[in-house]
């Protein structure tokens, strides 16, 4: 990591908060690449319908075309769908799963963990036990079970991933809340007459949210992998195009038409890496320990 000292010092003197943040971002290579990758993904997701050369849902006459054949840059599959277009549409699915499940997981985790850490005592005891119980559950098999039993729509996949991944967020924010509630600014907020809920939402959560942000971003890459895994097992949403499904369907043609699975696999690796870099970069930038080490 090339965190320049200059970045921090200039940052401290500069009154502009935005500027300071930008300087921090610039100084972390992982975060920088993560952000570039994310912008690319978001751009593709938003403009996918304009960028695709073919309708990915169209079952054309060009079946199992090779790379470049009939203007299909990355070839076609056994149903005649254009692989390149499918990959682009797959970004939407992946991002949707990532963001949707991350939101659910973050909101539940922050609320549950924040309440446990701030209120402490018996509430904390009960919640911590629940969190531990949840953490012992083999998540993927639980997801598998639920999706197999219920409808495998993309919304369900999102919700189930969100509902099974919040405990790690809850643990992180609980630890934060435990220390923040001892801070003077929380005591001074009590002295100024703020209620417990106001303190929880105004002081505890905003000041303790950073590790959750980083964790959630890494959680997004896991969500993408989980969705791909489900699709690969044939439990994905049949109505949307997803990379996992492409790998699943391409599996039987792996020797004759390797491109069906391979590019979807590369897309997954790329997206997961982007979110991982983002999460790790955020961790570096927001972690005070890291900061002081650089400052010293």
């Amino acid at each position: 990591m090339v965190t320049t000292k200059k970045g921090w010092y200039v940052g401290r003197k500069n009154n502009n908060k935005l500027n300071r943040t930008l300087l921090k971002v610039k100084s972390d290579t992982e975060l920088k690449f993560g952000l570039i990758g994310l912008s690319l993904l978001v751009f593709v997701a938003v403009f996918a319908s304009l960028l695709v050369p073919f309708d990915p849902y169209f079952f054309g006459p060009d079946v199992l075309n090779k790379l470049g054949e009939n203007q299909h840059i990355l070839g076609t599959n056994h149903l005649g769908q254009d692989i390149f277009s499918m990959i682009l549409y797959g970004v939407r699915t992946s991002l949707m799963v990532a963001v949707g499940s991350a939101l659910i997981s973050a909101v539940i985790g922050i609320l549950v963990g924040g309440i446990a850490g701030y209120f402490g005592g018996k509430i904390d005891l009960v919640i911590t036990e629940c969190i531990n119980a949840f953490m012992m559950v083999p998540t993927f098999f639980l997801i598998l079970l639920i999706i197999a039993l219920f409808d495998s729509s993309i919304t369900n996949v999102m919700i189930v991933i969100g509902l099974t991944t919040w405990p790690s967020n809850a643990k992180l924010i609980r630890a934060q809340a435990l220390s923040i509630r001892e801070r003077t600014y929380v005591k001074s907020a009590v002295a100024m007459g703020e209620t417990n809920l106001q303190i929880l939402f105004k002081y505890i959560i905003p000041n303790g949210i950073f590790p959750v942000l980083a964790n959630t971003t890494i959680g997004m890459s896991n969500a993408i992998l989980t969705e791909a895994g489900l699709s690969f097992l044939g439990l994905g949403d049949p109505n949307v195009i997803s990379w996992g499904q492409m790998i699943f369907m391409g599996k039987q043609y792996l020797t004759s038409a390797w491109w069906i699975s391979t590019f979807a696999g590369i897309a997954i690796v790329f997206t997961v890496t982007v979110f991982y870099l983002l999460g790790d970069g955020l961790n570096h930038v927001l972690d005070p320990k890291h900061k002081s080490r650089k400052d010293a």
Partner: protein
Amino acid sequence: MEEKKPFVKINNISMWYPQKSKSLSQVIKREKQWVKAVDNVSLELQKGEILGVIGESGCGKSTLGRALARLEHPTQGDVFIDDVSTQNLIKQDQRKFRRTVQIVFQNPFDTFTPRDTIEKILMRPLKLHGIGKSEEERKQKCIDILESGGLKPAEEIMKRYPHELSGGQLQRISILRSMLFNPQFIIADEPVSMLDVSVRAEIINMLVTLSREKDATVVFISHDIALTRYISDKIAVMYLGKIIEYGDSETIINRPQHPYTQALISNTPSIDLDEIRETIKVEGEPPTPVNPGPGCYFAPRCFKATKNCFKHYPDTVELESGHLVSCSEI
């Protein structure tokens, strides 16, 4: 002499913390060990009076302050302000209690959330308590208050974040903010101990002036005896969670009766006394207040201790009008 009714009546306040059982035998016997950070403290304060609370660090001063400000619920006891039980008041109308009782903290660098500007920090309590009719009126009030506290230009300062201000500026803001509600009872927990020596006097003067202006009653917590003497009307000396001596500030400084107070004052070179006294050496560190007693808590370190001192905790006796001491040997 003092027939006036006390304005603030601290009645048997105790703050005990359960200590995590350490040894196996304790776990088996389910013996609860208590850290008696504050133990049965009773004090009376007249309206507008400043009471200094002194004692070594760890003797429970801050805990007493937190209990008085009801940042924590005391294990026992109550505080009456103008004959109103604060225990009831906080249940019935906690905002009113917060407006009546305010606290200034020791660490100004941590008193405000790092995420808000000074403007937001000052506006929030005003809004919360419905002071001022409009946003503009509240903002004007903040500006006026900052300027009255010598923080100029106020508009400029209000745009700043806490980490962009100095400790002195922050502590001024903290004091000014606690004065927003015209509190009747103010607790100041070592308000200048973390500040540069050069700014201490101004901050203390500001606190005292504002309190006098509002005729507020103040508990001033400090381990700086010279400073406490300078600003306080009365002084209470604390040792291991108990008040061991109380009286007029000059009486305590010039004629301390409790051996602990004598030792404490004789070890303060910066103080000019009526007579020159020898430094009294006190052996050892103050013990932690885990199940202390049964005798006088200070007895193990006391240079005057007799067998008697270890038997039971001494009663409090009034030596002269308004001078209270808890010592078996007096």
